[in-house]
C-alpha cells in the first residue's frame, strides 16, 4: 500500500512537512510512526557516513539516518529544534534526523508534480514528487530510495 504511493498521488494525501537545510521536505504520514526529540544518539564507528548513530526507542535499537549527510549538505548543530522522524521500513524502525518539523498538511494530487533530476543540488532519485504549497515547494521524500542499504 505504502509502496504504491506513486500511483495514488492523484488523490489527496497527508504529508508531514519538515526542514532539511534550506529545503522543505514532505513525507507521506502513512510511513511515519512517530516524531521524537533528538535524544542521545550513540555514534557507530565504521558505519556508512549518513548513519548518525543508534538510539534507544523504547527498548529497541533504531538506526538514525542523517538527511543532511544523505543530501551532502553542510552538517548542522542541534539548536533544540532538531527532531527524529521515526518511520517503519522493512520491519525495522529507522529514525530520520531533520532540522525541524513544521506541519502536517493535506496535499491534493493535482498539486503534486514529478521531481526534477535534481533539487537544490540533491539528486532527484531521493524524491517522489514536488508538492506546490502556497508560498513554497515541498520535496516529497522517496523513502524506499532513501533507506536503501548498500
Amino acid at each position, binding site marked *: 500500500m505504502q509502496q504504491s504511493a506513486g500511483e495514488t498521488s492523484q488523490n489527496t494525501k497527508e504529508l508531514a512537512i519538515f526542514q532539511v537545510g534550506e529545503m522543505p521536505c514532505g513525507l507521506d504520514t502513512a510511513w511515519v510512526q512517530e516524531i521524537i526529540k533528538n535524544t*542521545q544518539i*550513540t*555514534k*557507530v*564507528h*565504521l*558505519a*556508512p557516513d549518513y*548513519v548518525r*548513530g*543508534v*538510539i*534507544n526507542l523504547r*527498548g*529497541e*535499537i*533504531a*538506526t538514525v*539516518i542523517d538527511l543532511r549527510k544523505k543530501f551532502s549538505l553542510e552538517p548542522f548543530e542541534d539548536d533544540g529544534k532538531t527532531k527524529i522522524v521515526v518511520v517503519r521500513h*522493512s520491519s*525495522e524502525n*529507522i529514525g530520520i534526523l531533520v532540522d525541524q518539523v513544521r506541519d502536517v498538511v493535506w496535499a491534493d494530487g493535482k498539486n503534486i508534480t514529478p521531481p526534477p533530476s535534481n533539487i537544490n543540488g540533491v539528486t532527484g532519485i531521493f524524491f517522489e514528487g514536488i508538492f506546490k504549497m502556497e508560498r513554497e515547494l515541498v520535496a516529497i521524500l522517496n523513502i524506499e530510495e532513501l*533507506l536503501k*542499504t*548498500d
Partner: protein
Amino acid sequence: MPLIDDDETLLAFVEESKEHLDGIEADLLAIEEAGADIDTDIVNKVFRAVHSLKGGAGFLGLDKVKELAHAAENLMNLIRNGELVPTPSIVSTLLDATDLLGNMISNAATSNDVDISTHIAALQKAVAANLNEDEKPTLENTLTLGSPDKPDIFHLSEFELNATMKGGNNLFILEYDLIADIEQQGKTPLEVIRELQQTGQLVDSKVDIASVGDLTTDIEAMRIPFFALFATIMEADLLTGFLGLAASKIHAVNVGEQTASAAEPVHEPSTTTNAPTKQEPEPQRQGEALPTATMPPPETFHSEEPQGQLADHDNAAKQATPKAAPPLGRKDSLQIKAETNLRVSVKILDNLMTLAGELVLTRNQLIQAVASRNQQGVDTVSQRLDLVTSELQESIMSTRMQPIGNIFNKFKRVVRDLSKDLGKEINLIIEGEEVELDKTIIEAIGDPLTHLVRNSVDHGIEIPDVRLSTNKPATGLLRLSAFHEGGQVIIEIEDDGAGINTDKLKAKVLEMGLYDRVHLESMSPKELNKLIFTPGLSTAKEVTDVSGRGVGMDVVHTNLSKLGGVIDIESTLGLGTTVSIKLPLTLAIIPSLIVTCQMERFAVPQVNLVELVRVPAAQIKERIEKIGDALVIRLRGELLPLVHLREALDIKTPIYVDPATREIKDERRANISDPRAGEKNRTPSSRDELKEEQEQFVEKRMREDRRVNPLSAYNILVLASGDFHYGLIVDQLLDSEEIVVKPLGSHLRNCKCYAGATIQGDGKVALILDVVGISAKMKLNMVADKVKAQKLQTKEEKTGLEDSQSLLIVRNTPDEQMAIPLGLVSRIERIKTANIKVTAGRRNIKYRGGSLALFGVDEVAGVGTRDPGAETCYVVVFPMAGREVGIMVSQIVDILDAKLKIDDVTHKQPGILGSMLIFDEITLLVDLYGVVAGVMPEWALIKSQADTGDDNKFNILIVEDSKFFMNQIQNFVGEAGYNTFTAEDGVEALKILNEEQIHLVLTDIEMPNMDGLELTRNIRHDSRWSSLPVIAVTSVAGEAAEQSGRQAGVDEYLIKLDREQIIEKILFYLKNKQR
C-alpha cells in the same frame, strides 16, 4: 473443499501434526531397524499419529492430506498386524509419504493442489504386494456408506473396511452438528476427534457443507453436519452415553452375515444404508448386493473423486458463506503464525505467574518506600527486585530452552539416506538429546551440524570394503553427543573414519600458496587439522577429493563463531575425526564486560574474554614489542597480537582525558605532559598513519623511561578469537553486566566489528563488540602467525629452561608482601567489609546465592593483620574440599611470572610455604590450603588411600628438580597414604622405574638432563609401562604446553601446588589402573 474458516483449529492442527510427524520419522527408522522383530509400541505410536493426522485433515477439508495419510495408515496397519515385515523399501515409501505430508501441512492452504498420486500408488503397491490373491480385489472395491437421509457420505475400499472390522469392532456413522453438538457444548472439533480416537478408531470424517443452506436459511435451523465413520468395540447403547450424542444421530453399520446389511439408527428400525460384506469379495456380486457401491478403475480412484468433491464443496461454500475461501495473503500470515508458536509447560507458566505476582508486590513496596522517602525500605526492595528479576529472567529463559534432541533426531534420517546412497553402513549413536539450548541457537546450529554430519558420512567413514581391508568393522560409527561443561554446551561429532590426511592437506595449502613450508612445519597436528576451516581452501573441489573434507567448512566455522561458538577438530589418520563445538546456552542475555574507549561505552561478551591485563606505564617498554609493523604484548612468555580499540573502530579524531583534571581534551594538543606531544601537528588521514603514530608512541615510551601518570597505563582485554588470542587496548574498564542483546538495523549489517547493541541502565545505547570481527578486520591472524614464526626462531636460542611460576602478589599491611600461586585461584573479588557476616565464630559473605567462608592469612600465620577499618578488601577465591573458600587480603599488587628460588626454612610456618625475593622485597608464599586447614582442620582431610581397601600401598614416583616443590608434593602425597619415590630428573626416574614396582608417575616438565616430556615418551615406548599413568605437574599452564604434554602421552596436566586436584587424579588413575 475449502478450509474450515477457523484459524485456531487449523493452527492447532498444523502444530499438532508437525509434532506427530517429527516423531514419526524417528519411529519409522526404529521400525526399520527392528525389521521383522516388530516393536508393537512404536508401530502403534506411528499408526496413531498418522491416524490423528487423517482425522484432523478430513475435518478441516485438507482432502489430499487425508488421502495420503489414509494410504499410509493402511500400510501401517499391515505392519501393526504383523502381516507385513517393514523392509527398508517399505519404510522408504512411508518416509517419503510422511515427508510429503509434512510439506503439505506446512502449506495447508495449498495442500489440496499437491499431486500425491505417485505416493499413493507406491503405498498401495506396497499394500497389494502383501495380499493374497483373493484379497487383492478388495483393494479396488469402493463401497459407499451413508445414513438413512444421506446415503452417500463415505467412500472406502472394501479392504479398508475389512481391516477396520478386525478385532470385533462395530462400525457406526456418527452425525454431529457442528453448531448444536459441538460449538454450543463448548467443545472444539479437534477435541471431539480426540475423544473419538480415545474410544475407538475414526475411520473417516467429513463435513457436509452442502447441506448448510444459504443466507436465507433461518439461523435457528442452521446446522453444519459433521459425519464420522467410527469403529469401536463398544455397543451402540454405550456409545450414546459416552459421546453425549442423541441415539438418532448414531447409525450402526452392520457388516456381517446379512448380505443386505444396513446402517440403522439405533432404536430406529427404518434404514436403507448399504454396507458391504466380508464374504463377498467378487466385484460382480458386490455390485449386485450393494446397489450404490461404485467401482471406479483403480488409477482414478484417488484422483478423480476428490476433485469432484473439491468442486462440489467449492460451490457449496460460495453459497453458504461468501467469505469461506480466505484471501491468499491471510493464509500466508497464518502459516508464519503457526511456526512461531511455542509450547510451554504449565509448570513453568505457573512459576512465571507466581513471579509476576511477586513483581507486582515488590513494585507496590517500592512505590510506598519511595513515596515515604524511606531509604532503608528502598534498599530492601531493590534487593528483592534484584532477586525477583533474576528469577523471572531465568524462568522466561527456560521457556526458550529446547532439547537438542530436536535436531539430533533429524540426523537419523540424514545419515540413513546418505549412507544408503553412498553404499556405506553406519551406526549412528546419539547421546545427550536432553541437553537444552536456547531456541535461537537450536535453530541456528541445524545447518552447520548437518554439514558436519554429512561430511563425516560422505568423506569420513569409508565404504565397507575399505574398512574391512584396514581391519575396521564394516559398519562405521558416527557418534553425536551433547553435554554441559562449564556453563557451556559441547556438541561432539565423532566418526571412526579415515581421518584427515594432513600431508595431502599441507601439499594443497602449499600449492595454493596460503602458507609457506617453514610455517607449515611449525604447525602442531591440531593446527594442521584446523586448516580445513581456511576459506578458499574449502571451495576448491580437488581438496574434497584429496583431503577428505572441506566443502564449506569455513562457512561452518564462521556461522558457529557468529553464535559465540568455538569449534575444535581432532583427527588421527586412519582412526577417525572428532569435531567438538562449544556453544553458549543462550544468546539473548549474555554476561559481558563494559569498557570505554574515547568516552564511549562498549560491551565485550564474557565468552570471548580470557583475562584482563593492565600494563603500567613504566612497564610498557618491556611488555609491548613490535613484530614487523604490528604491536604485540608479552604475556607470561607468550606473544599476543595487540590492537587499540580506537584503531579498530577507525576513530580518527581521538580525544584525550587529562589524567590530572579528568578533563576531556582534543588529543592533538601540544601539551608537555602528554607523551605524544610534539609529533602531533599533522592530521593522521589513514589508519596506516595512525598506526605509525602508535609505533612512534611506543618507541618514545621506550626511550623515555619515566614515571607517567597511572592513568596512562594500558588496559588490555585478552580475547579469544577462534583459535588464537589477542589483546585489545581500551581506555577504561567499567563493570561486568548481564546485557540484553538487540540486533542492529539493516544499515549497520556491514559493520563486522559489532555483534549488536544493548541498552544500559541509564537508557543509553552501548554497542557490543564482535571479537572475531575485530580480529578479522585488523587481520590479527596474520600477526598471530608471525608471532608463531618468531617464537619458532627464538625457541632454539633459548637455553637453560626456567621453572617459573605465575604469582599473585598481595598485601595485608603496606610493608609485608605475600604471593599466591595464580594457578590455584579461581577468581578475585572485591567486597565491602560491611557485608562480612560472622556466624558461629566463622566469617562469611553472601556470594552467588550461597555463602562463601572467609579466612585471613593472619588467623594462622604470624603475618600482619588486615586493617579492620578498611571499607573494602579483596577476596582470593579458590576451590577446596569440593567448595569455594576465600582468603581475605587488603591489597592486590600485581600478577607476575617469577623464577622461584624459594627459601623454605627461614619463614616457613603454618600457612606459609616459604619466602622469596620479588622486587627486592621478601615475599611470603602463602599456603592456601594451610591457611584453611589451620582454621578448619576437618576441611583439609585428604581422601586417603584407605578407602581403596588395599593393604598394599601404591608406589608413586615423583620426578621434580626443584627441592621446594619436591618437598611439597612428597608431603601431601605421603599424607594421602602413598609410598613415594623421588627422582630429580628423567634419567634418574627411568632408573627407578626399572628397579621398583611403580604404580603412577608424577613428573615436572622442565628439568635438566631429561625433561618430563622426554621421560613420558620413554615410558610410553616401553611396553612394560605403556599403561602406567603419568601425571604432569607444572607451573606453566597453557593450552600449548598442555597440548604438547598430551602428545607425549601424559594422562593429566595439573598445576603444582594444586594438591586437591593432584590427589584426586592420583586416586582416579589408580582406581582405573589402566589408562
